[in-house]
């Protein structure tokens, strides 16, 4: 990994197998002294995506599969998302696992609003994504009627592997977001509002 002393200037990815962080250095001597250069976006995204705190809004069998995904055999901790909170104020990933009715929809919306930003939503399984086979008077045809969804998971219920696929997709999405651009936009909004 480290270059030999006196090596020519080079650019290479070091420090991690994670391609998203993209830590680059121009000077091998610089790195040997314990420094590295990167971007704020890369580091913030790297930190966010590897420390997701899920909040489970489990209403049906998809939540049972989430328990399997979280427990020791499949072990969601491998993706840094094992710290499952039951308060929306402690969490940044809402896992909507199960059927949502019209009676529940305003409650789901309110809990989502109680989560601090940045926040993400997984829509798990047929029911949360589309209403599933509950094409009836009482079931919401997809939670995206009331809250924005980041990743949809197919299945009835999905296997733990599908959860992990969704978490990997979400991690990519988080890494691709730009913290600095969001921050700039927020600052502009504040100035406009006065």
């Amino acid at each position, binding site marked *: 990994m480290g270059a030999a002393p006196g090596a020519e200037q080079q650019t290479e990815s070091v420090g991690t197998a994670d391609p998203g962080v993209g830590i680059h250095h121009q000077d091998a001597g610089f790195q040997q002294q314990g420094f590295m250069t990167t971007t704020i976006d890369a580091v913030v995204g790297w930190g966010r995506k590897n420390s997701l705190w899920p909040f489970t809004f489990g209403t049906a069998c998809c939540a049972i599969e989430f328990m399997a995904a979280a427990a020791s055999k499949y072990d969601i901790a491998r993706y840094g998302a094992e710290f499952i909170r039951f308060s929306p104020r402690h969490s940044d990933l809402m896992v909507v696992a199960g059927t949502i009715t*019209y009676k529940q929809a305003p409650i789901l919306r309110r809990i989502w*609003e109680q989560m601090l930003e940045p926040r993400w939503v997984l829509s798990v399984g047929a029911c949360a994504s589309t209403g599933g086979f509950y094409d009836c008077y009482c079931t919401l045809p997809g939670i995206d*009627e009331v809250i924005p969804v980041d990743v949809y998971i197919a299945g009835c219920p999905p296997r733990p592997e599908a959860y992990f696929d969704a978490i990997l997709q979400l991690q990519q999405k988080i890494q691709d977001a730009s913290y600095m651009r969001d921050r700039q936009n927020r600052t502009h909004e504040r100035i406009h509002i006065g």
Partner: protein
Amino acid sequence: MSAQPAGPGQAPTPATDELRQEFRTRVFQVLAQTFQAELEPADRWGLTVVLPGSRLRDAVAFLRDSEEFRLDMMVDITAIDYLGYPGHDQARFAVVYNLKSTAYAAHRLRLKVRVEEESASVPSVHDLFAIANWQERETWDQYGIAFDGHPDLRRLLNHIEFVGHPLRKDYPARKRQWLSTNDPLVAPLDARLRGRGFEVLEGAGLNSPTVEETGLLGKPSVEKINVVGRHK
């Protein structure tokens, strides 16, 4: 001869076809003589007895208290909407009561009361079986059949702003109804807390915004976030 009743903590004698048939014969005889009961010919597997609504309460109380039958468990109350049912020429609705015995395994009985669409009501049995309170509320909610004498005939399953009764056959199958408030139980909860001597802080997070305030209905927005009380 019928089986012995099961005492407290005992399992009842297992039901046999003979015991079931013997129970059906006896109970129908009594109901027909005393409560003008008729046989429902559509039931080919068990025993369904059609009663006039005016005799329902007497019959249920009799069956519950009778030492001979001991039908002491109200398993379910539901209804049937016969609108468009092939060959049906009687009242549009029927309310169905499923009774069973905890002492005799063979004792199971279904009572049926025919209900005209205009009146759409039957006498309540909530004082005979406590569980009937919620079972009748559910039947009211889904079928719009009123239970005379019920102390608290509110919807049980559908939300408080729901209009109509969805299990009626003429309810539009694809009709959807939004709920505009996120917690209708907050006001009763506040009242209960005040009744117990607690002080409920105004605007301390328990007062729910309405759906318009939160921007629900397909338009996610984050502008309005609920104001929450803070801990000291």
